[in-house]
Every structure is written in structure tokens, then in C-alpha cells.
């Protein structure tokens, strides 16, 4: 088990190595992500993936000949703390901050970083407002947006049923409400004759869903859509309690919320759920991508695990920033952002990727189900 102390120790040891090897001043890269609380375990995995990518970049000569030194901070999934940690990183002289698990934390920190003229790259947070904020006109995000994800879920449901009763079980925050709104809009756009039998909202940290399962049963749904990004505790708890209630309606989880750790934690209760995601290390087109193969091998060498989607997004954030900085031969926020927004970046973990002019990365989706405790990819 990776404890916080061992992670910090390994990080400190790691950050000292490149200095000796390069003899050049390291370029500091800040990372803010939850390392404690409900998303703490996933946050640690993201940090490990970023460390693996930093090792690969440093092994290739660093960024413009300078090794990468990572400064990792725990935002505790709390906007006020995220801001404090962002200011701490600004004080430390970072060239870029890779941030974002919770949308409210990203929304709070991005303006602080923008005011200090420090580039921030959003790794995971999904709220649509992140790229629409006037306070950060140079925003860049790797994870898919709510609107993109909503279309995937709606298309999947349309392929299974043309009408029926749908229950939403949605976390009541920027991410959850945005995701539900997007899916409902897609229903209307595609003329799907669904009845929203219930719309159940809960706080992000909730782990007791017995009241919700009772309400779901009463609503007699044909399908239950779960929008729950609390993968450390909330989603596994919901899946287990829903399975115990023996309601029977299939569960569709919103895009990107079912990581391998959720399947592991939920156990047999995860079997039968359907979802979609943007990265699977051993599925095509990623399995045949040599850049991804090298990253996966580094993860297995350093941490003896396969990276999940979140780890890949964290590592790709660092990789894309390094490529953009090297391309413009500068760490200047505007120059680096200009080399990403509206541009194609070749040779990443995700293959050759394109960013739209608003800074959103495009994605290839795979629909999957969980069978016998394993993720079974149904198709792209």
C-alpha cells in the first residue's frame, strides 16, 4: 500500500535525482489533486502516473534540456484549500500547474493561477464552465467534457430502447448537474421518448444510498443512470446497496466514473453495469500505440500496476505541456497555451490528439460492461 509518507519520500528522492543527472536547473511543475478523503486513492494513482511520465521525459533529456521537478500538493477536494495550495505553488516558482479532480476546486483555482500568469492544465474536472470562464481565457483540459460524454450515453441508450422510464441518481454539484443536464438535452435532441421517473440528488461525499434505492424502486425504472464521481467510496457503496435492493433495472454509469478501483471495491455488485470511457491501456487503439506501451511499461516497472484513465490523463497533461513548451522553446503561459489550443499534438499516450480552440481535447470512446469482476469492452 502506498502511504502518503512513502509517496512524499519517493517524490523527494525522485526530484533530487534529475538535478544530479542533468546539472541544469530543474523546471518546476506543480500538481494539485486530492491525496486524502474520498478521491485520495485515485489522486495518489494520478500522481504516480505523472511521476512515471516525468521519469520518461527526464530520461529523454527533459524539457529544453532541463529536468522536471514535481511539486505535489493535496487540495483535499476543497476549493479554499485548492486556492491556498495554488498560491503555495506560485510562490515556489512553478512553470505550470496540472490540476483538477473536482470541478469546484478547478473553478476556484484557475483564476488564481491565471492572475499570477501561471499556465494551468485541467487533467480531470469536467464542468463545462471550466473552459467558458472569462477569468481563464487560456484554459486547457484533457478529460472529456460533460457535453461530449452526454452524447455517448444517450446514443448507447438509444441503441437499447426507444422509450422507457429513466431514473437519475446524480451528485449535486457542478459536475453531476452538468452531466445530467447534458444527457437530458441529448434525449430531447434525439427525440427519445423517455420519462424521467425520478431525479435523485445527493452530496458528493454520500455513501449511504438506502433512501435513494427505496425511491428508485418506487419509480419502477427501466434504466438507472448513476452520475457519481466519488469513485473511492460513493460509487462502490451505491452499486453494492443497489445490488442488495435487488431492483433489477440495469445501471448505466456516466462516462469515466467506473475505474478499475471501483470494480474492485464494488465486487460482484459491479457486474452488469454499463459505462463508457476514453482510455484502456490494453485495448485498441492504445494497445498498439508505442508511446502508450512505453508509459504502461514504466508504470509497471515503478509501481507494478496498469494505469487507469485518470493516471493516463495526468501523465498526458505533463507530456502535452512538455511537447508544447519544447515546440515554442518557452515556458511562457501564453506561448505554451497557444501551442496547445486549437492545435494537434502528436505522439501522446492517447495517440495524436487535437485540441479545439477553447482548449478541449478530443477523444475516442469505448463502451464497456463489467462481467465477472472484469471490464469487458463492447466497442468504440
Amino acid at each position, binding site marked *: 500500500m502506498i502511504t502518503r509518507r512513502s509517496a512524499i519520500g519517493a517524490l523527494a528522492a525522485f526530484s533530487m535525482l534529475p538535478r544530479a543527472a542533468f546539472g541544469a536547473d530543474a523546471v518546476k511543475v506543480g500538481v494539485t489533486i486530492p491525496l486524502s478523503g474520498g478521491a485520495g486513492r485515485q489522486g495518489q494513482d494520478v500522481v504516480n502516473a505523472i511521476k512515471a511520465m516525468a521519469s520518461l521525459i527526464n530520461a529523454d533529456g527533459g524539457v529544453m534540456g532541463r529536468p522536471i521537478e514535481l511539486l505535489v500538493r493535496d487540495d483535499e477536494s476543497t*476549493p479554499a484549500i485548492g486556492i491556498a495550495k495554488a498560491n503555495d505553488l506560485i510562490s515556489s516558482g512553478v512553470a505550470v500547474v496540472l490540476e483538477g479532480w473536482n470541478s*469546484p476546486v478547478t473553478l476556484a483555482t484557475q483564476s488564481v493561477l491565471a492572475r499570477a500568469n501561471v499556465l494551468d492544465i485541467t487533467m480531470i474536472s469536467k*464542468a463545462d464552465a471550466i473552459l467558458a470562464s472569462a477569468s481563464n481565457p487560456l484554459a486547457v483540459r484533457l478529460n472529456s467534457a460533460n457535453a461530449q460524454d452526454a452524447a455517448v450515453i444517450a446514443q448507447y441508450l438509444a441503441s437499447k430502447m426507444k422509450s422507457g422510464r429513466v431514473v437519475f441518481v446524480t451528485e449535486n454539484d457542478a459536475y453531476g448537474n*452538468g452531466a445530467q443536464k447534458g444527457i437530458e438535452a441529448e434525449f430531447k435532441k434525439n427525440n427519445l421518448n423517455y420519462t424521467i421517473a425520478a431525479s435523485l440528488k445527493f452530496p458528493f461525499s454520500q455513501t449511504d444510498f438506502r433512501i435513494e434505492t427505496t425511491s428508485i424502486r418506487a419509480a419502477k425504472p427501466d434504466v438507472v443512470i448513476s452520475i457519481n464521481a466519488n469513485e473511492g467510496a460513493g460509487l462502490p457503496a451505491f452499486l453494492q446497496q443497489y445490488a442488495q435492493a435487488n431492483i433489477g433495472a440495469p445501471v448505466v454509469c456516466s462516462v469515466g466514473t467506473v475505474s478499475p478501483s471501483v470494480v474492485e471495491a464494488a465486487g460482484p455488485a459491479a457486474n452488469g453495469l454499463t459505462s463508457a470511457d476514453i482510455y484502456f491501456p490494453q485495448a485498441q487503439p492504445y494497445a498498439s500505440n508505442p508511446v502508450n506501451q512505453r508509459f504502461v511499461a514504466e508504470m509497471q516497472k515503478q509501481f507494478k500496476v496498469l494505469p487507469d484513465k485518470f493516471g493516463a490523463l495526468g501523465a498526458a497533461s505533463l507530456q502535452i505541456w512538455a511537447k508544447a513548451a519544447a515546440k515554442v522553446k518557452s515556458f511562457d503561459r501564453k506561448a505554451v497555451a497557444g501551442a496547445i489550443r486549437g492545435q494537434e499534438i502528436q505522439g501522446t499516450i492517447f495517440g495524436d490528439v487535437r485540441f479545439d480552440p477553447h482548449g478541449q481535447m478530443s477523444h475516442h470512446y469505448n463502451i464497456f460492461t463489467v462481467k465477472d469482476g472484469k471490464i469487458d469492452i463492447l466497442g468504440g
Partner: protein
Amino acid sequence: MSAGRFLPLAGALALAVLGFFLPRLLGGSTLVYDTLVVIAIFSAMSYGLDIVLSDLGEISLAHTAFFATGAYAAAILTVSYGQSAWVAMAAAILASLALALALGLITLRTREFAFSLVTYAAAIVCMNVASNWDFLGGSDGIVGVPPLDLSIGPITLTAGQSFEFWPYAYALLLLTIYFVYRFRRSSLGQAALMVHMNPRLATMCGLDGNRVRLQVFLVSAPISALAGWLYAFQRSYVGTDLFDTYFLVLMLTSVIIAGRGLLLGPLMGTALLMSQKSFASLGAYGDKLVLGAILVAALCYSPRGLAALWPRMRRGPL
């Protein structure tokens, strides 16, 4: 002016001037400025609760709502309506007074545990309204609050970075402390204390307990709201996290840990908590353990707060 009054006044002024230069004395980094700015803002926020808790003897759990009201007023008026920070400040005060009046008329009929529970319920209702009302930004909140601009004519008074916010945050803190100082010497402050300590005597003296309680509640709300108003400009984003237990626990702990009723108590408490978090953090779990241990130790061994230990230490062991 007699020496007996002049010396404390001169001492307080010297301390206030020294305090202004504290960020520079501590190195002047972004982290130092940011920490001291939030200490000043969160202290002001806590003083709002301190008046109700220390002087009225009631534990209000609704003060996050007043803090958030000030922040939302600033965000809506500057982002959605392009109004100045001055207009937003006036709106923050008025909105918090209106909310305090509505809450006060309902909650101040109750006492002690029931009062706390009702005020907590009110804060939860406010949070749900903010989460689900598009006018307040819904669950996305309101992004893009502009830098603070209090310019008057040719005098430019703006702040975007933490070091630029310091004079305004410090001024707010000093004004708040002075206001609380004056309040405690006012007839309302004395009446509040009497209603708290001896309600029967207060009634016999002709005081209307409910009226006094409502007046104190109305006085306390704008203090927390002004802190929220400045916080909105400092962090440029206002969301429903402002109603979170993070701020509620911070407020309560800040007031209790140093000692209730102490003029500098909320400032000392907030400074202790935020400094530990910024400069001596042991990580999220470690910080919570430290905070919990200090709180338990303080309440068990010095129920009047850590400041009460000082005279005891001066006396030596009993």
C-alpha cells in the same frame, strides 16, 4: 488625555502599524501574503459569529449563509450586472441584513440546542437554493469575479494579486475589531450580555430579550457578509462550497480555541489554524488530527480557551 488611556491606545496603534508590515517581515512571498490575507478575511468572518456566540451565548450555525451572501452579492453584481465593488459592498450589507432579519424572526424564538439546529437547517436550505437556482450560478457557481476595484475619481484602489489584497483585508480586519470593541461597550452589547447571563434580571430591567437577540443577530450578519464580499474578489470564484462545513468548522473553532469573548480571540484562533495549514502542514489527515487534539485538549483543560492558560502559566502550577 490621561496616561492611563493614552498608553493602551498608543500600544494598539503601534501594533496595528506593525501588523501592516507583517507580510514583509515574514519574507513577503506569495504564500505569506495569501495566508495573511485569508487570515484577515476569515477572522472578520469569525467575528460575526463571535458576537452571537460570546455575547448572546447562542451557537449560530447559519453564519456561513451570511458569509456566502456577501460573496454572492459581490459576484452577481460585478459579473452579471457590471456594477462596482462599492455597490456590491452595499448590496452585501443589505442582503445579509434582510437574510438575518428573516432568519432571526424565525430562529430567535428558539434557544440553545434548538437554535443551533434551526440555524443549521437554514444554512442547508440556503445552500440548496444556491445549488439549484440559475440566478445564483447553480452548482457551477459564478466564475470570473473581476479584481477588486474601489477607485474613487483619480485615486486608484485596485487589487488582483494576494499582495495587493493585503491592505484591504487588513483594513477590513482592523475595522471589524474596532467595531466589535465599540459594540461590547455599547448599550446593545451590555444588554446582550445581560440577556445572555441573566435573562430574568434583563427582563426586570425592562429589556425585551427577543428584541435584543434580534438586534445582535442583525449586527453580526453584515460583519460575516463583508468578509464574504472581499473573499469573492480575492478568489474570483463563488460557489456553493462557501456554505460547506469547512467554513463553519473554521468559524466555530476560531472563536472557541483562543477564548470566547476575547477581543482578539477570533483573530488568534484563525491565525493559529491557517498558519499551521500553510506553514506547518502535516497533510490533510495530520492537520485534522492536530486540530482535533488541540480542540479536545483546549476544551478539556482550558474550557475558556487557550488564552486562559496564560495567567495560569504566570501563576505557575497549583
